[in-house]
């Protein structure tokens, strides 16, 4: 909402605050001021000039050569405007000065004649679109006087943000009330220059009123509580006087013509949207307020757009067809134009919800719909209409024909809300007595009607009837008036809550720490992806290239790896924790899981002069998978090599993670060529994705085992293992078949090549034997090793290497 400082000042006579102070004030009362500007801010160098003589340019038919008095003696000016005439006043910019937008006006010769400045059009000054001619101004001026001051453009416009509950603040009156409540005096409506004293009569009925051949009927009282129409005949459409244009500009609105300006003026002043119909264009001189129904499919609004109608949209119709979308925008066919003489002025109250759904359906938000959606003062309607009539009579002439038609199927009754002082203290934590509370509420128009011990009965005026409906709403007003900054802020005691810290957050913390310690950077990517396959779809995406919610996080992370590749990074180690979405098998809410995804490429450790560079290998991946699976699943899931074809990972590099119930909860491998857009110099990209358990499992409590009392004996055993036999099988067999003396098996070497027959490898194990109750003898250990060697040969065909 753009607020004119001058307008406010006119409405609050005692207002002593500067524009900056008004801004600070409104901000602290809940209507923050986002910016301030002055319409004349860039016009500081423009002065008022009088054209002394205007004659034809000797060398050009379409140019005039003028002598202009701009205060510092007369100067000659070449002017291209057809409307320049001697004796008139115009904005003038002397040579050497700049126009808005930074255009420097230079002294120049045009077709042989010297021009020492420029007479300006409205558009050149940023004051309107008119540029057919220069802007003639009327009044009592002095040559050379600053244009901004002469025209009252030194107003300040405040850009005030209002919250959606405070429709009453969408007007200067509403802002003035907030300031008046601060003790700057009561808000009042300013006088309208040249307006006659009005004494309008009102012809009122609940459903239909007809006066002098004009008829208004509300067919849908549910969506239109009240409709007032005033008939003004004999108006002369033209530009508004300067005071009106100034006022509208000060409030950030563009003047159009005197009648339309009058409706805008009253809307900006009182918050009541109004609409002027050309009465002669209303068929049957009738207004019928009804839904579009199935009869009308489309309607052309006054912006020239043809719009598709929904049967439930509320329309203003004449005897036959719609003439306006109620509360949103008028129609092209009933618009006021230069030939209009008779006007029907509408002042109506439409249902907020209906306006909202119509506005959304048409995708058309206007100043009117914005206000109706947020609530218009039901008690201010007659005053608003009277003011609009007065403005029109003052600026466009004409006369009011008959009483105002006032169709009111649902009259407004104000609400009384009880406020218990104890409840106020309960919520606010400070003691406020009845007098203090009354002192806060009444300047806001919230009248205390009666008072019982500890209870105030408060009548809510129409303009606050939308947001003040409950006791707590009044308490908020008390807090606001008391001043949020006045409340103490002493930290008191509290009871601990009943909600345990969510274990999944803790698990995420642990995983983050572990990965960061291993040199990974945490990435964050949005959950939207282009991949369609099996993914949850967003019904109304704004970004149509990524309309799906990801089920797997890896593609997003790999795109980030590629992003780093394209910036020349060879060593990239990223991980992310995020949500995976899946379509629920039985419909309904999508299923969500938290996933950990890791991708890495490049060198195992930072390059160092003492060792050759070595890229990450599958063993780094395997080690990482084992670590994060152990952390996340606390031993109830494990990773194993996978031979199943993977859509993402290269064959022979895959692991799959399976939980205790046999469900696959993760996978890892080398990202297959073609699945990541890697440059030729890039090292392999390794990746894993793991579902975190839900609920999270508690880590097992460690159990202490007494340390051994007797020494261990170690034996190394080098085996020739055929490719058909896995190291895991060999290890398992050793563990199973060697009796209780074998404490630990460690694989410490793996070798292929010279000295080892093809199709076999040399695998070396260190076996550690120990007895709990004695020192082992060599003989016992030898026997155990022999036993193992025998078993290996017998069951796996594996023989010791000699």
């Amino acid at each position: 909402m753009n607020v004119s400082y001058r307008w406010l000042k006119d409405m609050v006579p005692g207002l002593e605050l500067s524009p900056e102070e008004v801004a600070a004030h409104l901000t602290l009362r809940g209507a923050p001021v986002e910016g301030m500007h002055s319409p004349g801010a860039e016009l500081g160098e423009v002065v008022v000039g009088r054209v002394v003589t205007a004659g034809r340019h000797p060398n050009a038919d379409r140019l005039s050569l003028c002598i202009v008095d701009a205060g510092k003696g007369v100067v000659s000016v070449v002017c291209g405007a057809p409307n320049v005439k001697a004796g008139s006043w115009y904005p003038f910019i002397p040579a050497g000065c700049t126009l808005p937008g930074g255009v420097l006006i230079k002294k120049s010769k045009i077709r042989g004649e010297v021009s020492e400045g420029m007479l300006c059009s409205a558009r050149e000054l940023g004051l309107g679109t008119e540029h057919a001619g220069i802007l003639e101004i009327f009044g009592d001026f002095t040559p050379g006087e600053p244009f901004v001051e002469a025209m009252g453009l030194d107003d300040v416009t405040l850009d005030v943000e209002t919250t959606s509950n405070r429709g009453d603040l969408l007007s200067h009156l509403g802002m003035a009330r907030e300031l008046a409540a601060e003790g700057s005096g009561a808000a009042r409506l300013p006088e309208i220059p040249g307006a006659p004293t009005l004494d309008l009569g009102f012809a009122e009925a609940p459903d239909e009123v007809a006066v002098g051949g004009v008829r208004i009927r509300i067919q849908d009282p549910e969506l239109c509580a009240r409709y007032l129409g005033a008939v003004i005949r004999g108006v002369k459409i033209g530009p508004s006087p300067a005071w009106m244009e100034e006022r509208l500009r000060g409030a950030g609105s563009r003047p159009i013509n005197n009648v339309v300006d009058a409706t805008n003026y009253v809307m900006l002043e009182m918050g009541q949207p109004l609409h002027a119909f050309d009465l002669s264009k209303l068929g049957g001189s009738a207004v019928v307020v009804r839904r579009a129904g199935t009869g009308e499919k489309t309607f052309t609004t006054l912006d020239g757009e043809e719009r598709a109608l929904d049967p439930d949209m509320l329309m203003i119709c004449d005897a036959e067809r719609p003439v306006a979308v109620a509360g949103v925008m008028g129609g092209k066919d009933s618009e006021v134009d230069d030939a209009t003489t008779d006007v029907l002025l509408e002042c109506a109250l439409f249902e907020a919800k209906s306006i909202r759904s119509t506005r959304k359906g048409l995708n058309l938000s206007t100043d009117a719909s914005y206000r109706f959606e947020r609530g218009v003062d039901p008690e201010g309607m007659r005053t608003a209409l009277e003011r609009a009539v007065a403005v029109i009579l003052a600026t466009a002439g004409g006369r009011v024909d008959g009483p105002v038609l006032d169709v009111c199927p649902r009259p407004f009754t104000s609400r009384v809300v009880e406020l218990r002082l104890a409840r106020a203290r309960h919520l606010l934590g400070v003691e406020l007595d009845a007098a203090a509370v009354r002192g806060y509420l009444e300047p806001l128009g919230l009248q205390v009607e009666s008072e019982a011990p500890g209870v105030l009965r408060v009548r809510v005026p129409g303009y606050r009837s939308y947001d003040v409906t409950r006791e707590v709403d009044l308490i908020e007003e008390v807090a606001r008036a008391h001043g949020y900054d006045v409340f103490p802020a002493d930290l008191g005691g509290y009871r601990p809550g009943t909600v345990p810290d969510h274990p999944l957050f803790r698990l995420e913390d642990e995983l983050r720490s572990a990965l960061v310690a291993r040199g990974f950077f945490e990435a964050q990517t949005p959950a939207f992806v282009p991949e369609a396959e099996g993914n949850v779809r967003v019904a109304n995406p704004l970004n149509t290239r990524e309309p799906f919610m990801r089920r797997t996080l890896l593609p997003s992370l790999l795109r980030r790896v590629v992003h780093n590749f394209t910036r020349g990074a060879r060593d990239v180690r990223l991980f992310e924790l995020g949500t995976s979405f899946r379509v629920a098998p039985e419909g309904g809410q999508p299923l969500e899981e938290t996933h950990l995804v890791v991708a890495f490429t490049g060198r195992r450790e930072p390059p160092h002069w003492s060792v050759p560079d070595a890229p990450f290998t599958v063993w780094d991946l395997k080690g990482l998978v084992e670590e994060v699976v152990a952390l996340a699943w606390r031993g109830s899931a494990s990773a194993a090599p996978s031979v199943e074809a993977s859509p993402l990972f290269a064959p022979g590099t895959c692991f799959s993670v399976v939980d205790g119930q046999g469900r696959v909860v993760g996978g890892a491998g080398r990202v297959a060529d073609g699945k990541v857009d890697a440059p030729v110099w890039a090292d392999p990209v390794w990746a894993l994705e793991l579902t975190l358990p839900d609920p999270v499992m508690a880590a097992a409590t460690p159990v202490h085992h007494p340390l051994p009392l007797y020494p261990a004996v170690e034996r190394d055993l080098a085996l020739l293992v055929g490719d058909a036999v896995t190291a895991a099988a060999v290890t398992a067999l050793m563990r199973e078949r060697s009796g209780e003396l074998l404490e630990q098996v460690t694989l410490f070497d793996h070798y292929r090549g010279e000295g080892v027959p093809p199709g076999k490898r040399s695998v070396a194990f260190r076996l550690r034997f120990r007895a709990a109750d004695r020192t082992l003898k060599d003989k016992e250990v030898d026997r155990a090793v022999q036993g193992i060697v025998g078993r290996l040969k017998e069951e796996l065909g594996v023989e010791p290497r000699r």
Partner: protein
Amino acid sequence: MSEVHPTEALRSLEREALEAISHAADLHALEEARITYLGRKDGRISVILRSVGALPPEERPAVGQEANRVKERVTEALDSRERDLAGPAGMGGEDLTLPGRGPWKGGLHPVTRVVDEIWGIFRDLGFTRARGPEADTEWYNFVALNTPLDHPAADENDTLYLDGGRALLRSHTSPVQMRTMEKHAPPIRIIAPGWVYRRDTYDATHTPAFQQIEGLVVDEGVTFVDFKATLAEFQRRFWGPGTEVRFRPSFFPFTEPSAEVDVKRIIQRTDGTRFQTDWIEVMGAGMVDPNVLDNAGYDSERYTGFAFGMGPGRIAMLKYGVDDLRTFFDNDIRFLAQFAR
């Protein structure tokens, strides 16, 4: 007058020699020490060794043994010191100014750092963390939070809906308020960090997915004073000493009275001078609306509380001087490395 026993002399000589060797600053000094103690002709230890033959026979073996031991020990020390003093810049064989060998450095995402820092402060103030689903329903996202779908407040963050059914992507973390109160009895004292989604395009200050942190406190006797005190305390701890905090009336459908929380930070320039920022909006908050408590099945006459919400992404921008929210989604490792621990 009794002379010092040769064994005693040897031991004191050993101490002296070792001391001298360890203090030798270069090879030249070390060579001097060698000559002083072990020089063939006048070396002090050599002299004693040579004199063993002059001792009474019963003393010879013990003194001879000791003299040999000391000689060996000193020789060892000389050799070791020599090794130490050799090599580049006299650092003992290696140029220790060469770079060391360490593991890769990693780091948390800057937004996570902010979330962690916020969580740390609230943990100290007695809060725990709660979670809720990111795909939610109109009831939890709007209606239960006193936001009728046909009220303009429901538009303020344009919502993304999901295909099929009425599921939507939560437009704020506030649904966690209701979900937490449904499962737990008061007192409630939680924060709820998480992702939220809005129908926005990507620009410097908007992304369709971003993080929020919700907070909720409900108990008997929680007042506007507690609300102000807790959140002002948080802001001061987060932004640092000297931070000014301001509460300004505002509107959220699920709180009443509602407030925006603004801070004025003290920022230290690189040259050490300080300046105070203008007011910066950092949090939306308020006393929990009684309708919300009623919707959760709490007795709103008995229980009161406050709620708040903030955007760690926006806060990270302010705190780290990042001027484009999209930078957080680029995940350029050169950017991430700036936040490595």
